[in-house]
């Protein structure tokens, strides 16, 4: 009985855990070497599928994504480093294929734009408060002081 429960528990765990692990990668594509396969998965998760542009080739069911997954694995089997595999794909499809864009002159606005905007905003706030502090209230004029004295002296309505 206890054993049956343990099996049930394991099955339930598998149901929760497996969908995350099994993505578009088909069993036939996988490499038998688990270390290489893991590297292939890591690389694939950083490469954009160009057909369904917001998915990685690891997630995508598209035909081209399948071809690229197989190609990544072939390059790894041939002895490429992860960087060499990435460069191989980038040479054909350009920086756009990288889901994390590199920092270069084309992407400065992308990487640093938000920082610049935040700095501008903070500067604006600083200027606003500095100005407010400078504008100390003017001293009362003679007429105002007289009126104030009158108000203070009277006991109000």
């Amino acid at each position, binding site marked *: 009985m206890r054993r049956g429960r343990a099996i049930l528990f394991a099955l339930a765990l598998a149901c929760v855990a497996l969908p995350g692990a099994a993505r578009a990668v088909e069993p036939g594509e996988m490499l038998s070497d688990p270390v290489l396969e893991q590297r292939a998965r890591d690389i694939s998760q950083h490469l954009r599928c160009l057909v369904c*542009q917001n998915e990685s080739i690891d997630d995508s069911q598209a035909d081209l994504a399948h071809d*690229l997954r197989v*190609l990544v694995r072939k390059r790894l089997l041939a002895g490429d480093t992860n960087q060499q595999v990435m460069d191989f794909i980038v040479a*054909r*499809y350009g920086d*756009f294929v990288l889901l994390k864009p590199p920092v270069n002159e084309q992407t400065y606005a992308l990487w640093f734009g938000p920082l610049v905007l935040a700095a501008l905003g903070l500067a604006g706030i600083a200027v606003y408060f500095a100005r407010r502090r400078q504008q100390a209230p003017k001293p009362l004029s003679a007429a105002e002081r007289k009126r104030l004295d009158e108000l203070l002296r009277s006991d109000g309505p």
Partner: protein
Amino acid sequence: MPYKYFLPIALFIGIVAILMSGLWRNPEKLPSALVGKPVPQFDLPPLPGLEDKKRGLSTADLEGKPVLVNVFASWCIPCKVEHPLLMRLKESGVVPIYGINYKDKPEDAARWLNELGDPYQRIGADRNGRVAIDWGVYGVPETFVVDAHGRILHRSVGPLTSSDLEKTILPLVKASQP
């Protein structure tokens, strides 16, 4: 005091203008990594069944004169859309068109060419799509303009239109003709 109100409004309009310009960009038109580079090294066999009529396509065939390289497949609907344009271009004789038949069954490709007409001087059969990856192809049809030195001058993704042809492709071809 009016400048005080003018600045935020101007900033707002500026940001809206930048964001709106993004709405009209075509997200499927990707920058090409290969423009300005030599064509990849490849050697594709002819279409099985058409061997005696049509030779295959390799890197060496892309030297000497400007050509168009068109990636097509019989299963590709937009290829059918641009096909009449390619036929007209072939008849005009301005520039030879070479085909890369992408992931197609040879008999389907042959039937397609028989029924619709064959605009290609040479056709390389890329059964598994491996050569297309070297060309950076991600959606058929794609058309490349290759100059006389085997360099890629231009790449267009999706079916060609006559305005693409007249405004971009043919001027490039003419400019690179000796």
